[in-house]
C-alpha cells in the first residue's frame, strides 16, 4: 500500500485477506460454521446501545410520577370493579436526584385466617398433593410445581396454626413491596437489555420497540398482578400471602422479561445473509 502509513496499510491488508477468506463461488459469501461465529462490536453498536440504555432510563425515571398516578387510577377503578371495599391511599417516594412519585396503597386491615380457613387450606393442600401424584409422567414439571406450591402453602398453614408470634406483614406492606420491586425490575430492564440484547445485530427500531413493549407490559402487569393478590388475600385471608409473594410476585416480572427477550432474539438480524458472520479465531 504505497503512500499509506504502515498501521493503516496493515489494517487494509487484514481486511482484504478477511474478505478473500470468505469469498466463495461467483463472489458469494462462504458462511463460517456455527462453531466459529461470534458477534461484531463496532462504534455504531456501542453508541446506539449507550443511547438506548440512557434514553430508556431517563425516560423511565421521568415517567415515574405519571406511572405512579396511572397506577393509582388503575387501583381506584379496579377497586370498584373487583368489589374491594377498601380506601386507596398513597405513599410518596423520593429517589436520589429528587425524583418524587406516589404509589397507591390499599389502606385496609389484613384478614387473618380462622380455624375453618386453615382447615380448608390444609385440605386443599392435601388434595393438590394427591393430584400431583395422580398426574401422568408427561406432566412431571407440573407435578413438581404443584408440590412446590403445596410446600409453601403448608408452611403458611402451620405458621398461622401454631406460631406464637403474629404474622409480621400487612396487606399494605405486601402491595407496597410488590409495586416497588416491580419498579426496580422496570428500572433494570434498559440496563439488562443493553448488556444482553442490544449487543446483537438486531435493527435499531426493533431494539427500541422491544424496550417500549417490555416496559409498557410491565407497567400494566405489575399493578394488575398486585390487584389480583389483593383480591385473593381479601377473599382467602393472609394464609395465601406467602405463596403469592414468594411464587407469584417478583418471579413473574422476571419471566415477563425472559419471554419478551426470547421472542426478540428469534428475530432476524439486521446484517442479513450477505454479510459473513464475524469469526474470531485466535
Amino acid at each position, binding site marked *: 500500500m504505497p503512500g499509506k502509513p504502515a498501521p493503516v496499510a496493515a489494517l487494509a491488508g487484514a481486511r482484504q485477506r478477511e474478505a478473500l477468506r470468505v469469498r466463495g463461488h461467483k463472489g458469494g459469501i462462504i458462511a463460517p460454521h456455527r462453531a*466459529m461465529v*461470534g458477534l461484531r462490536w463496532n462504534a455504531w453498536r456501542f453508541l446506539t446501545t449507550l443511547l438506548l440504555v440512557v434514553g430508556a432510563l431517563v425516560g423511565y425515571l421521568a415517567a415515574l410520577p405519571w406511572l405512579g398516578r396511572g397506577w393509582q387510577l388503575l387501583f381506584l377503578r379496579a377497586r370498584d370493579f373487583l368489589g374491594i371495599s377498601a380506601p386507596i391511599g398513597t405513599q410518596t417516594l423520593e429517589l436520589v436526584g429528587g425524583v418524587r412519585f406516589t404509589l397507591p396503597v390499599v389502606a385496609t386491615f389484613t384478614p387473618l385466617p380462622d380455624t375453618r380457613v386453615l382447615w380448608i387450606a390444609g385440605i386443599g393442600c392435601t388434595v393438590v398433593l394427591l393430584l400431583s401424584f395422580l398426574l401422568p409422567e408427561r406432566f412431571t414439571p407440573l407435578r413438581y410445581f404443584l408440590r412446590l406450591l403445596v410446600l*409453601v402453602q403448608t408452611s403458611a398453614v402451620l405458621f398461622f396454626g401454631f406460631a406464637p408470634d403474629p404474622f409480621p406483614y400487612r396487606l399494605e406492606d405486601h402491595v407496597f*413491596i410488590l409495586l*416497588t420491586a416491580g419498579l426496580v425490575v422496570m428500572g433494570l430492564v434498559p440496563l439488562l437489555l443493553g448488556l444482553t440484547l442490544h449487543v*446483537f445485530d438486531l435493527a435499531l427500531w426493533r431494539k427500541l420497540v422491544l424496550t417500549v413493549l417490555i416496559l409498557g407490559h410491565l407497567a400494566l402487569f405489575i399493578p394488575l398482578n398486585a390487584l389480583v393478590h389483593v383480591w385473593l388475600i381479601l377473599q382467602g385471608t393472609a394464609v395465601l400471602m406467602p405463596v403469592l409473594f414468594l411464587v407469584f410476585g417478583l418471579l413473574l416480572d422476571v419471566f415477563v422479561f*425472559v419471554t419478551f427477550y426470547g421472542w426478540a432474539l428469534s428475530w432476524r438480524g439486521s446484517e442479513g445473509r450477505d454479510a459473513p458472520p464475524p469469526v474470531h479465531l*485466535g
Partner: protein
Amino acid sequence: MTLLLIIPLYLIVGVMVIYTIRHYLFTLNRLFGRHRQPYVDIGSADWPTVAVFVPCHNEEKVVGHMLDALLAGDYPPGQLTIIPIDDRSTDDTRAILDDYAARYPGRVRPFYRDRGRPGKAAALKDASTQAAGADAVIQLVFDADYLPGRGLIKQLVAPFFDVEIGAVMGRVVPLNVSRSLLTRLLDLERTGGYQVDQQARMNLRLIPQYGGTVGGVRRSALLAVGGWNDATLAEDTDMTFRLVLAGWEVAYQNRSECYEEVPETWGSRIRQIKRWARGHNQSLARHWWPLFKRPPHLSVRSVIDGLLLLGVYAVGPLLVLGWSLALALYYLGVQLASGLLAIFAVALYSTLGNFAAFFEVAAGARLDGSRSRIKLLPFLIVGFLVSLVSVSWATLVQLATFWTPGRRQHWEKTERFRSADMVVPNGEEG
C-alpha cells in the same frame, strides 16, 4: 437464632452471585472474545493409531447406526480399531457386534464382559487395558447412541499433535430434538453448555470438561494417571480433574459435532441427571482439596473455574437450602436490610441472577442460527425445576448413605428411544 439463618443465607447468595457472574462472563466472552480453536484446520497428517471404544449395554436399537457411522469415517482404516464393549447385554447387542466383527475383521474388534463391576467406567477400565487393539496411541470414547460424522475422528485426534493435550472433547448435538418439549429443552441446555460454556472455557484457557463421549484421551496420559476409575459414576469428570491435576491440558473442539439421542421422557431424564449429580459430587469430594491447594502449573483463575465446575451439581441443594432459609426469615419478618434498599437488592438479585442462565442459552441458540427455538426460552424453567429437585434429592440421598456400610454403586443406564430400523443421517455435516 435469626443470625443463624441470615449468615448461611448470605453465604449461599454469595455463591449464587459468583455463578451468575460466571454465566455473564462466559456468554460475553463467547460472543465477543477471540476463539481458540487451534487444531481445527488440520486435515492432512501422519495420523496416529486410534482405538474407538463404544460401551454397550442392551444397545440393539442404536449400536448398528453407530458402527456404520464410524466405519464410514475418513480416518485411515489401518490406523483405526473400533472396540465395542458389550457389558452383559441381554438383548441382541452381542449378535450385532459379532456380525460386524465378521464383516469387518480387524477393524471392528468387540470386547465382551461377563463379570466384574457393571457400568461404563468399569467397562472402559477393562477394555482399555485388555482389549485387542487397545494399545493405540489415542483412545476415543463414544456412547452407543451417537452418530459421528465422516471427519469427526480426525478432528478429535488433531489436538493430540500438541504434546500437552491429555484429553479432547467435542460438541454434543441432540438428534431427536423435535420429539417433545423435553427434547427441545434439552437441546437448548446442550447449546448453552457446549456452544457457550465449553467454548468460553477453551477461549479463556480455563478447564474445559471432558464429557465422557465424543472425545478421548491420550493413552500415555491415561496410564500416567492410573487408568479409568471404576469407583465413580462420572468417570469423565473424574478423568478431567485427574489429568488437569497431573499437568495435562483438556481441549474442547466446538467444530467437532456429534449427534446424540437425548431422553424423551421425564423419568429417563430424571434418572440421567441423578446419575450425573451423584458422579459429579463424587468428583467434588475427591478433587476439590488437591485443586484448592493449587498445583504450581495451574493459574488461580483455572483453580477457581475448576472449583466452580466441580461444585455445579452442589448448587442445586444449596439453592433449595437458600430458599428454605428465605422462607423461614420471611415468617420471622426479618428485614435483611432497611426498607427500599432491601427491595432493591432482592429485585436486583432476582432479575440479574435468574436471567443469567437464560442469556447463556439464548446466545448459544442465536449463534447456532436456530432462532425460532429461542422462543421456548421461558419454558427452560420447567426443566430447571425438575433438574433442581432431582439433583437435590440425589445429593441428599448420597450424603445420607455416604457412611452406610456395604453401600453399592448402582449404574442407571439411559433408556434409548430410537427404532433399530430408523433411517439416520449419514453425518456428512460433522
